[in-house]
């Protein structure tokens, strides 16, 4: 039995498309109360990949500081997203612009199908994945927690699959743990649970289920103390990962005593 301090645990990095990351926590850059708070939270998270959105420059008011002034790109890998896109065409367009703005060919691909739930349009997502993979992109699609869709995305060339745990920003936690486990069993690419995490135990749970990583934004940015929550998430992802590797005990209906039954006083 491997020891928990063995090299396979301390050197537990993970790779997507040949690029290795030290942390299995991927964070966002949206919804922070200020840039200063975001900087502290990013630092506390230990993450080395951060998602950003691609938006039109405000032509009439260009006074706003650039987001990139507040992200240490020597430590953080920038992952542009296509959030807010409702068609494959718009997502592909946005991905191309993100590649040019960021000078990397990675994209967190989102094609939204419904405004209220922000659930993905999986059909358009698969189509956009196919187009972008052909153009040389490393595509990380945000998808439903549907094993069949994840398999199709993988077949289309996705470098990882990112099933949702619950609706974006809902903080509901992992709603369908069974599907996440099945997706992990089906997939040959990394599985990153993206969206739905509310607190540290949700992130740990996702990792215990076998996820290779967890991506979150609101759970940290929206917490009362984002830096403290970022630190909590760092440990939660690590704890969940270790628990997954360690192999949990089977669930049983009745008790099994932990102390010896022999030598009891008075028997």
């Amino acid at each position, binding site marked *: 039995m491997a020891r928990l301090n063995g090299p396979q645990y301390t050197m537990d990095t993970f790779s997507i498309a040949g690029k290795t990351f030290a942390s299995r926590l991927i964070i*966002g*850059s*949206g*919804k*922070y109360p200020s840039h200063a708070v*975001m900087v502290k939270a990013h630092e506390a998270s230990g993450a080395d990949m951060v*998602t*950003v*959105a*691609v*938006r*039109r*420059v405000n*032509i009439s008011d*260009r006074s706003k500081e*650039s*987001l*990139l002034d507040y992200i240490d790109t020597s430590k953080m890998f*920038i992952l*542009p*997203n296509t*959030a807010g896109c409702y068609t494959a065409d718009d997502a592909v*367009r946005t991905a*191309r*612009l*993100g*590649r*040019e*703005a*960021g000078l990397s060919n990675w994209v967190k691909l989102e094609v939204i199908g419904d405004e209220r739930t922000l659930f993905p349009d999986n059909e358009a997502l698969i189509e956009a994945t196919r187009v972008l993979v052909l153009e040389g992109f490393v595509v990380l699609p945000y998808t439903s927690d549907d094993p069949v869709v994840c398999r199709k995305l993988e077949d289309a060339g996705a470098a990882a699959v990112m099933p949702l745990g619950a609706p*974006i920003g809902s903080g509901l936690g992992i709603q369908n743990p069974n599907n996440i486990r099945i997706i992990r069993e089906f997939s040959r690419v990394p599985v990153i649970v993206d969206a739905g995490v509310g607190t540290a135990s949700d992130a740990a749970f996702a990792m215990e289920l076998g996820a290779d990583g967890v*991506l*979150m*934004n*609101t759970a940290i*940015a929206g917490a009362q103390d984002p830096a403290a929550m970022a630190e909590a998430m760092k440990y939660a992802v690590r704890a969940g990962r270790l628990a997954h590797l360690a192999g949990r005990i089977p669930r049983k209906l009745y008790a099994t005593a932990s102390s010896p039954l022999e030598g009891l006083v008075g028997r």
Partner: protein
Amino acid sequence: MTITLNGDPFDISGPLTVSELLATLEIDARRVAVEHNLVVIKRATFDEAVVREGDQVEIVNFVGGG
């Protein structure tokens, strides 16, 4: 001339290159990506791409997101 800039009509004297357009708008070219008539313009060719009357230009940058 009038172009469509980030979805809105915009008056500017031209034709002019993408580099000149960004300079006129006081936008740091290193921080943005530009799409010209639905084609993304490589940063290295900002000096060559010419924007003309009626053209459609999108200028984007990174903002916070998840």
